[in-house]
């Protein structure tokens, strides 16, 4: 006998709620803003319909004054290449953006400032120190490769975005536990803020890291400096690296 999984929109209680979904009657939380006649929400501590009402007061059309995500034009201030196509990038963001991105599981969209919007691609935040953001990018397709070759190191960062409807409350609410953190390959960057959050809540952390497809472990030292017991292994798959050929065959 299990209850339905209680999920909350990650934008609730943030300045970005209510969003475009509320404008178009597709809010995933408020039944009224989904076109239903009655209140039936998974209560989050505030009434989204009310927020909508107040934000809409006096504006020409509903939602005109809603806060949208920030676009920040900034410069890559430091690069480090871990592997042939794995790049660590550091760049400055505004103070308010930095504050918002400290939430565990945050991510931004990045592209060259003069590229069209569809060049945006999502990048998880690895670290925020003051107003400096650190991310790791795998140059794997046209968008990411193009970003790394941006002239004058100029980039456009759009955010903040949070980690969807899953994950957040469980990580935030675990205290004084004993936790095994498993990360490999490009899963390493987002593991760092999770580790920091878990440690801040008095949890004891043991990490198992593997190089994964990218062939490099690069958060080992940072974790050790935070006081995490780290075990680096060659692979977490019994048969070694992922086998793209076999995968293609299955799909066909």
């Amino acid at each position: 006998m299990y209850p339905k999984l209680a999920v909350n929109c990650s934008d609730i209680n943030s300045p970005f709620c209510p969003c475009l979904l509320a404008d178009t009657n597709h809010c995933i939380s408020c039944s009224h803003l989904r076109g239903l006649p009655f209140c039936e929400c998974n209560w989050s501590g505030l009434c989204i319909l009310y927020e909508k009402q107040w934000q809409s007061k006096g504006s020409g059309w509903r939602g005109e004054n809603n806060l949208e995500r920030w676009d920040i034009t900034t410069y890559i201030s430091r690069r480090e290449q871990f592997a042939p196509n794995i790049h660590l990038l550091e760049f400055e963001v505004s103070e308010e953006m930095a504050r918002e991105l400290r939430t565990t599981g945050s991510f931004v969209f990045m592209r060259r400032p003069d590229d069209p919007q569809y060049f945006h691609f999502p990048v998880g935040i690895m670290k925020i120190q003051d107003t400096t953001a650190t991310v790791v990018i795998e140059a794997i397709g046209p968008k990411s490769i193009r970003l790394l070759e941006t002239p004058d190191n100029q980039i456009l960062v759009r955010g903040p975005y949070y980690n969807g409807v899953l994950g957040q409350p469980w990580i935030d609410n675990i205290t004084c536990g004993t936790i095994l953190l498993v990360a490999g390959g490009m899963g390493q960057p987002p593991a760092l803020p999770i580790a920091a959050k878990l440690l801040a809540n008095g949890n004891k952390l043991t990490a198992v890291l593997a190089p994964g497809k990218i062939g490099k472990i690069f958060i080992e030292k940072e974790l050790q400096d935070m006081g995490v017991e780290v075990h680096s292994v060659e692979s977490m798959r019994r048969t070694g690296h992922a086998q793209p050929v076999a995968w293609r065959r299955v799909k066909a």
Partner: protein
Amino acid sequence: MINVVIAGGGWSGCAAAIAAAKAGAQVMLLERTDMLLGTGLVGGIFRNNGRYTAAEESIAMGGGDLFVAMDANSRHKGVSFPGHSHASLYDVSSMEPLVKQVVENYGITVRTQARIIDVLKYGKVIQALVMDNGEIIKGDVFVDTTGTAGPMGNCLTYGNGCAMCIMRCPSFGPRISLTAKAQVKEVMGQKADGSFGAMSGSCKLNKDSLSPEIRTKLEAEGVVVIPMPEALRRNSTLGKKACSQYAIAEYAANLVLLDTGHCKLMTSFFPLSELRAVPGLENARYEDPYSGGQGNSMRYLGIAPCSNTLRVEGVDNLFCAGEKSGVFVGHTEAVVTGLLAGHNAVRHCLDMQYLELPRSLASGDIIAFVHERMGTKDGLRLRYTFSGSVYFERMKSLSLYSTDRNDIGERVAKCGLTDVYNQCLV
């Protein structure tokens, strides 16, 4: 052991809990906020008009505990005000701890700040309730006394917005309906103009904010009627009221104040600047709802379809009471239906025939009458109470209205229902 779980600690939930405990069940009463009584925390008026008969019927049937508590905690008895006779006014400030004591004396587990968010149902049987902290509460039978008022989104959509009332939705989270969560389609009450819901019918003014003359008179007599200055008379707000027994012209021509601990103002809302134009109310301020100058809570937005035994249609083990069980107004009506629902919940677990109150009693007639009327379009636009409007007229015409305690006791005895709520069935 039969486990009865009651959702909602208002007057009807408390009555259902007591009736189920008396019938021999293990009872858990769940309440979303930190106090019992729900909107009864700002109620106060009972024994007015036909409510006297109904209270005495419940007492004769062995369900008098809550009425005895109200009587013991009355500030005024035998008060008359426009359209209403022999009213008693309980003290809203001190009623809740007393009721909690009565409930707990029956061994009922009362859990406050316990908000339900969902039900687990297999087929037509509810297995358990899901709490907002993920806890699961199992039961054999459930009673939905979650009411029909609020929450904020409904008050905004159907009324003038959240008026910050005793429901305290922002702090304790919104009311939910067990019935709706069990996928039963609910019925909506309507205003006289056909729009949905109805606004609560009275406000509370802070007594210290009244002029000393009005305050002294109010505390001595229980009622003060102030003729409304001509400029402020507005008939149009009356149709919006939940309490149609107070939606009469005299309430547009006069401000009626009652002493229920606070000063009860018999109007849904009244703009503060206009209220302060009334002599003696120059410094008035609201106690409940805090934004009584602007609006009041919206009600009757989710009524469960149910039979006259108060079993919810479409679910085997769910009963309902209070506003949830019909377009009823008032805590006398809540207690009357609550007792029946709690009692029948126990009968359900024992495979006994459900109790249906006979139409020779006002308590039985009102339930049957309301359910008949709710099937009609016009019927949903009215509210039903022993104390006025269409139902009190009906009570008088059918000679169901009586203020003679012995006479009422004999009527109950004739139906074979004397002390029916006092019998342990288990």
